């Protein structure tokens, strides 16, 4: 798949919730080819610390307008710098990168499990799914976070008309507990389902375990550092296991970030 290294222009930058920002970038070739689950590497400024570009999932891509958007929260210096980018400024962007979510065939329910900032790629995926959904298919969103204010992207999910179930660990919104509890519950409902998940790695590990036990097709988008994004540095290694038990390392940046549940060896 092709990607582009370009200077993207900030065409919109807005706060969507306390410490949740959407950044819209003019980057036509990326907008035209981006697929759900793919990401971009961005570098807001030329400072050398923080050094690496960071990966951000593509939240939306509008091929006509030539824009993509990403969704982030300020966590540390990198995202602080990102948040200061003014309208009209430029930043270096490489993308679209990686292999995204693939629609599973022959299922009636697509369950999207979003943990915190796992929501953006699933939101993009849901929007593309919706437009291709057959009458007997439905989408179920399970969104979880530690606290209510850390929930991400609910507006987008709701706008799609999908059912959304919410879990917060502190009970401040929806079910009080883990989003993986909602998943187990949902999988008890007798509908052939497929699961697509993005969130913290330990959540993904639980999602994988639940789906493997239930023999539910499952794809997860993993998080690792990704300095190069193109498969060159071999730093983003993900341990995988072949059916015959052989072990080696795949690259999260290009072989993933989306992997099939049965591939990943979480140890």
């Amino acid at each position, binding site marked *: 798949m092709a990607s582009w290294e370009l200077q993207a222009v900030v065409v919109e930058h807005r706060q969507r919730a306390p410490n949740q920002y959407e950044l819209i970038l003019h980057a036509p070739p990326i907008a035209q080819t981006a697929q759900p689950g793919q990401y971009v590497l961005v570098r807001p400024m030329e400072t050398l610390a923080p050094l690496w570009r960071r990966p951000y999932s593509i939240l939306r891509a509008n091929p006509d307008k030539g824009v993509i958007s990403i969704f982030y929260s300020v966590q540390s210096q990198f995202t602080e710098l990102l948040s200061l980018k003014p309208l009209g400024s430029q930043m270096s962007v490489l993308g679209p990168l990686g292999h995204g979510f693939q629609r599973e065939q022959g299922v009636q329910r697509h369950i999207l499990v979003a943990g915190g900032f796992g929501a953006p790629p699933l939101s993009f995926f849901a929007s593309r799914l919706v437009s291709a959904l057959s009458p007997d298919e439905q989408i179920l969103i399970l969104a979880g976070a530690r606290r209510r204010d850390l929930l991400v992207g609910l507006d987008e999910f709701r706008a799609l008309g999908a059912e959304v179930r919410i879990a917060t660990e502190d009970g401040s919104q929806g079910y009080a507990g883990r989003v993986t509890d909602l998943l187990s519950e949902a999988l008890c409902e007798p509908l052939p389902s497929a699961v697509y998940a993005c969130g913290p790695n330990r959540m993904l590990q639980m999602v994988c375990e639940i789906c493997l036990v239930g023999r539910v097709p499952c794809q997860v988008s993993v998080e690792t550092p990704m300095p190069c994004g*193109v498969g060159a540095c071999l730093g*983003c*290694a993900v341990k995988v296991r072949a059916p015959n038990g052989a072990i080696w*390392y795949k690259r999260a940046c290009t072989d993933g970030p989306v992997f099939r549940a049965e591939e990943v060896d979480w140890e």
Partner: protein
Amino acid sequence: MSRPDLSVNLGQLRLPNPIMVASGTFGYGLEYERLVDLNQLGALVVRSLTLRPQVGNAPLRLAETPAGMLNAIGLQNEGVEAFILETLPRLRAYSVPLIVSIAGESPEEYAQVAERLQRTSGLAGLELNLACPSPSHRAFDTAPQLTAEVVRAVRQTTDLPLFAKLSANGGDLVPIAQSAVEAGADGLTLIHSVAGLAVNPHTRRFRLASRVGHLTGPAIKPIALCAVWQVRQALPEVPLIGVGGITSLDDVLEFLLVGATAVQVGTGNYLCATLSTDLVGALTDYLTQNEIGTVRELVGAVRDVM
């Protein structure tokens, strides 16, 4: 003014320009082929190859540090045989000078890989990765006689241009550099990296599965410049390739001025995928604007403050 001459000679090896990409940071080059015009590079150094395929280290393999990064990839590579059969044919589609980096656990292993490469065509040179890939491995760049053993073993198997790549962990680099040259290296690549370590204070765990890793990136640029300059003082006739922390034209100029004939871009590739070829353009513009006929004029031209 006419177009400036960017070509440089590393001993017998002539490069169209002095901007190379550093081993291991640019994969086999093919990972970047859709983003970077490989033919514009001074040379492409592929990741270090070993005699047999290596799965590499367990994650975590990387950590970010202030203006730098630690890596402990553990030489993950397909092995020299697969490289020659599967990867090299695709690389032959490009005209860029191709340098293959070699690693091994013993002088014999290095020599076997070199010998295998000697029997193929389309290579511009070999680079010997003499640094320690992980704590359990042996480093060959920490003592003059170790370095010499590897270089000598390889030299006997090949007449390809041979560059010994050293880290700066072995104390005074000069005797090590000297012994590499005496054992038959045509030039030296300085520096590989510096040993470093990082801890995640929140989990209280090492950030790398291997604990110790290779520190690279802008943070080590002053160390690499110092190494190049000190070796240049001692061995003014030996072609040096400078590497460590290059992210801008200014950085390239710094390395040339202290005595590097060519440079390699490593970590910088991750700040901008096209950095290496962008630098070729920037260097051309710089020479043109400053009416410098050949880039070779800059090599070693640094002067004192006063």
